[in-house]
Every structure is written in structure tokens, then in C-alpha cells.
């Protein structure tokens, strides 16, 4: 009752996905603030390692089901079990990773429970909500904060009446912070008797999973290009600088949409969130969505022909100039001064 529940994804290696661990870290704080308990739900197969991991995140209760039908993830069995679990446990807040799993599952569950759900939150807070007209104050609601309408506004969404208050959050948005001490959560088995043959209507024939080729999240230096790079040939030049600096190349959504590079390099609200030591933004104007994915970088360089772009406001160095002029100079002077 009234608890915070985090849906935990099991990945290919049997572990809990990073995004779920990040949400547990955030969930722990929210639960403490509300004086409620943190619960995890884990549906998969071969869960020993995953359950072991949970002992480092201050989880009070784990609802788990270990069954061949539950891994790899498929919509129907998971949706059936989660919907049933939420009906039974009536959590106050339920958070899912905004992954191809969470974004497939959470809306289906929210629809079945007729609950409010906010996608891709960039921040979650607890606060009150007052409706002046009716003179009602709802206490301790989950503020679900996300950019909206092309990133020109930041909306704070609340679900005053429906429970659980549901939200999805992208990987990297919350910080992964294991607890200082381990604990042993109470383990509750999720009964599988609600599964029916109808939950088997979609079958996985084949899976080709690959380790991510681009490690943007782990990169200390990121050279990112925007639509202002002009074309793919110019964009490709960024790889020289990134390789030289021992970093990676990132991109804005506009650059990805324009075909300058693949989606796996996209940084921002609908891509990755990164916190490198140095972020070199090349031809990036800096929409809210993009900034949501990089504004916690330690140092930011913005290179743009337009000195008035929004990104320059958060940049440590704002260079006014054409990237194709500046790029060779960056490379030359780095080479000159590095030993």
C-alpha cells in the first residue's frame, strides 16, 4: 500500500538493466521523503544474479516471478502480471525505464488501470498541488517534469486522482547510487496463475542482440554535431577530433534525422543523457531537449556561426565561427601542445 514501485528490467546477461538501478536510486529518495517503502518488481528468467543486485539499493520488498515465459520480455505476459500486481498492491507511484520495454509496457498497464502516465520525465519531485476552484489541496504528489511542445516549454504534470502515479524515465537521467550498506529485501513471489494462453499470441522467433557499439555514456569527452554541420561529410570530420581527444561523437536529433549519423549517437531527451568532463558542441543551437541530455557536462564548448544560440548561455566557451574553420585549428593546437 502507498509504496513506490520500480519495474526492473532484466538484460541479456541476467542482470538488472542500468536504467532500473538508476530508478531504484531515485525511488529510494522518493520513498524516504514520503515515509513509504521502496519495492521492486522483477519478472524474468534466471533471476539469482538480479535479486542479489537489489540488496544494494535499499529495496524493502521484491515482487519476483522466475519463468521461461517471462524472458525475453514480451508485452502480454508482463502487462497481465504487472496490471494484476498493481491492482493487488495499490502502489502510490510506479516508475518504468523509458526503454523499448518500459515504453511498450507502461502505457498498456496505465490504460488497463485508467491511470495517468507521463513519458520521458527529465525530473521527478514531490510536492503539493492545489486546485483553487475547488479548494482542494493534494499533498505529496509526484511532479512529473518534462520538456513539451518542441522543447519550448517545461511542463510539470501531476495525477491528482489516479493511482499509481506512473512515469517513465530515460537511461542516464537519474544517477546510479548504490546504498552504503546492503540489506535483504523481503521476497514475494508473483503468482503466474493469471497468465492465459491469450498471453502467448505473440511469439519471438529470433533475437539478434549486440553490445552497444558506441559508448557515449562512458565517455569523458564528447564531440557533438548538430544540424548546423550542414552535411554528412562535414559531420564525419568530427570523428578526427573525437579520436584525437580519446572521446566519442554524439549528435542532436536534427543531425540524426538528417542522416548525419545513427540513432545510437543521439543525445537529449529522446536519446542519451551524458555527463562528460568536456562537451564540444559543433553547430548545435541547443533546444531544451538536447540540453536536457548534456547540460550537466563539466565543461561545455559551443562553436556556432550564430553567437546568439541558446546553447551559448550554458557554454563555458562560446566560439563564434564556422566549425569547418575552427575544427582544423582545434586539432592543430591540441597536437602542438600535447606531449
Amino acid at each position, binding site marked *: 500500500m502507498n509504496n513506490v514501485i520500480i519495474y526492473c528490467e532484466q538484460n541479456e546477461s541476467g542482470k538488472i538493466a542500468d536504467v532500473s538501478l538508476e530508478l531504484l536510486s531515485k525511488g529510494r529518495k522518493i520513498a524516504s521523503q514520503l515515509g513509504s517503502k521502496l519495492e521492486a518488481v522483477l519478472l524474468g528468467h534466471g533471476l539469482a544474479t538480479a535479486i542479489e543486485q537489489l540488496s544494494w539499493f535499499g529495496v524493502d520488498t521484491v515482487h519476483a516471478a522466475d519463468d521461461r515465459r517471462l524472458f525475453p520480455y514480451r508485452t502480454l505476459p508482463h502487462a497481465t502480471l504487472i496490471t494484476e500486481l498493481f491492482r493487488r498492491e495499490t502502489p502510490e507511484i510506479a516508475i518504468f525505464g523509458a526503454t523499448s520495454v518500459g515504453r511498450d509496457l507502461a502505457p498498456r498497464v496505465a490504460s488497463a488501470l485508467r491511470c495517468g502516465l507521463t513519458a520521458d520525465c527529465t525530473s521527478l519531485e514531490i510536492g503539493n498541488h492545489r486546485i483553487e476552484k475547488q479548494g482542494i489541496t493534494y499533498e505529496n504528489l509526484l511532479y512529473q517534469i518534462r520538456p513539451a511542445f518542441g522543447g519550448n516549454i517545461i511542463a510539470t504534470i501531476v495525477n491528482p486522482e489516479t493511482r499509481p502515479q506512473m512515469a517513465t524515465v530515460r537511461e542516464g537521467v537519474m544517477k546510479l547510487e548504490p546504498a552504503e550498506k546492503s540489506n535483504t529485501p523481503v521476497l514475494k513471489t508473483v503468482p503466474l496463475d493469471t497468465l492465459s494462453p491469450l498471453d502467448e499470441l505473440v511469439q519471438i522467433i529470433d533475437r539478434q542482440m549486440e553490445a*552497444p557499439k558506441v559508448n557515449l555514456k562512458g565517455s569523458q569527452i564528447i564531440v557533438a554535431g548538430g544540424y548546423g554541420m550542414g552535411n554528412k561529410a562535414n559531420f564525419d570530420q568530427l570523428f578526427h577530433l573525437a579520436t584525437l581527444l580519446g572521446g566519442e561523437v554524439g549528435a542532436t536529433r536534427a543531425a540524426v534525422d538528417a542522416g548525419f549519423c545513427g540513432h545510437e549517437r543521439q543525445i537529449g531527451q529522446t536519446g542519451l543523457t551524458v555527463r562528460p568532463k568536456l562537451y564540444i558542441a559543433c553547430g548545435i543551437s541547443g533546444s531544451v531537449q538536447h540540453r536536457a541530455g548534456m547540460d550537466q557536462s563539466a565543461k561545455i564548448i559551443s562553436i556556432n556561426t550564430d553567437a546568439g544560440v541558446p546553447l551559448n548561455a550554458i557554454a563555458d566557451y562560446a566560439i563564434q565561427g564556422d566549425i569547418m574553420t575552427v575544427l582544423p585549428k582545434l586539432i592543430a593546437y591540441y597536437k602542438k601542445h600535447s606531449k
Partner: protein
Amino acid sequence: MSLKIVVLAKQVPDTRNVGKDAMKEDGTVNRAALPAIFNPDDLNALEMALQVKEALPDAEILVITMGPPRAADIVRESLYRGADRGFLLTDAKFAGSDTLATSYALSKAVMRCQPDLIFCGVQAIDGDTAQVGPQIAEKLNFPQITYAEALIAVSSKKISLKRRLEHGVETVEAALPLLVTVHSSAPACRARNARRVMQFKHAHTPSELTGIARDYTQIYRQHPCLNIEEWNVQTIEADLAKLGLSGSPTKVKKVDNVVLVQKESKQMSDSDADVELMITELMENHIIG
């Protein structure tokens, strides 16, 4: 019985091209200045439906769009590219709907068509929620396949599709009926067909006809597909309490215009001296090594 396919398509403001003129002086968005476009993922969805029709020529493709009267453009555009018929779901009572209320309205509209297959884009660029597809599937009690990237095989009984996930691809097979959300990496939609444009430029909604002098009664009798029916709350027999603001569990508490806090940033030129100065500073601070 021939296969019936519904494609759900949305008209969206082109938020990817928010130029300077799209902002009002007070810093808010001037929605009127943004061009209205066919939601990109929904075009991929239409293409996948057309591919199914190529495999099963008896199949019929119905397009449903929900929006203001001008969203009839989306239906016409779909007809130009190969859809068979289209419907416009339009009613002021839908205003303020969140994804749950929207999916309820669309599911009621879809029910009128009794489809075997529903295709829609993964998400619309004005909200990026990716919630409406799965929520419609749940309301219709249809299984769902999200993030579809390619059609592999289809028959009147089942379909197999490739899904695009973060770290790989998955091939799935499902019995019909089914709802499919189509990813932006799926094949791009074919272009308009010139003959179809000539034919379907005469497709109109009843509201559009009120401004046209020509009498379409006879033409519609001969070519019913030119009649873009307008559906409202009564047509789809929807429960008002589940629509609009009252039917939306999520409430917007507040909206902040984005205000940037100016950092102490160093403004530099692209001169050699400036670039060299910056590089040396970064190296002295061990930001780069």
C-alpha cells in the same frame, strides 16, 4: 473475407523546424507559425500497411485521423499514396485530452471499422510519448507489436515483423488481430501517385464542401471513397466523461517558458589566438590531456 487494415495518422506541428519567427515576443510558441505536417512515423506506418496490401491485394486500408477540421489533409495525403478510404474524427469535446483520453476516443473510432490489423507510428513529434498505440491496443484487447521496422511475411491469419530495439533486432510472429506501432527506421513512405492525386483531390469532408459551390452529391454516389466522413463523439458512441480534460488523469500543473541562466561564458572568435588560448586553458585544467 478480405483483410481490413486501419492506419492511424496524426497531423502535427513541425516542431523540428521551430525557427525564430515561431516564437512570440513573450517567448512563448506561436503555434500558428508552425507548419502542420503528416507525423513522420505515421508515414512509415502507412507504408507498412501498403506493403501488406501488396502481399494481400484484397486488403482494404482505412485511414483515421483525429484533429481539427484541417486535419482532413492527412486523409487526402494518405489517399494520394494508396489508402482506400479515410475518416476524420473531429469534435471540440476532444480538446484537452491526454494520451489515455485520446486512446479511448481513437479506440472507439477504430471499433467502427472492425479491423484485423492496425498500424500507427511509434510516436508523434509533438508529444513524443509513444503511449497512444499501446493504449489503443489495450482498450481493444488486441496484442501489440511496437517498434516495428520491417514486414517479413503476412497472411490473413498472422504476421511476422522485425522490431528495432536499443541494442538489436527481434523477429516476432503474431496472430491477427493485432496493433503494430511502426518505427522511424522502417521503410519511408512511397510518394504520391499522380493518378490518385487527380482522383482524390476531390475527396472532402462535409465541412469542407460547405465552402465549395460544386454539387458533389452525384459524384459521391458514384465514388463513395471521395467522401471523407466526419465522426464526432456521438458517431463513435463515446462516453463524454472519458474524454477531454475530465477524461484525462494527467493534469498540467504548470508550464514554464524556458529561461536560460547565463553562465559566465567566455566569448571567443575563431581566430588562431583564441582557439590556442582555449586549448591551453583546457590542458592546464586537465580537462583534456
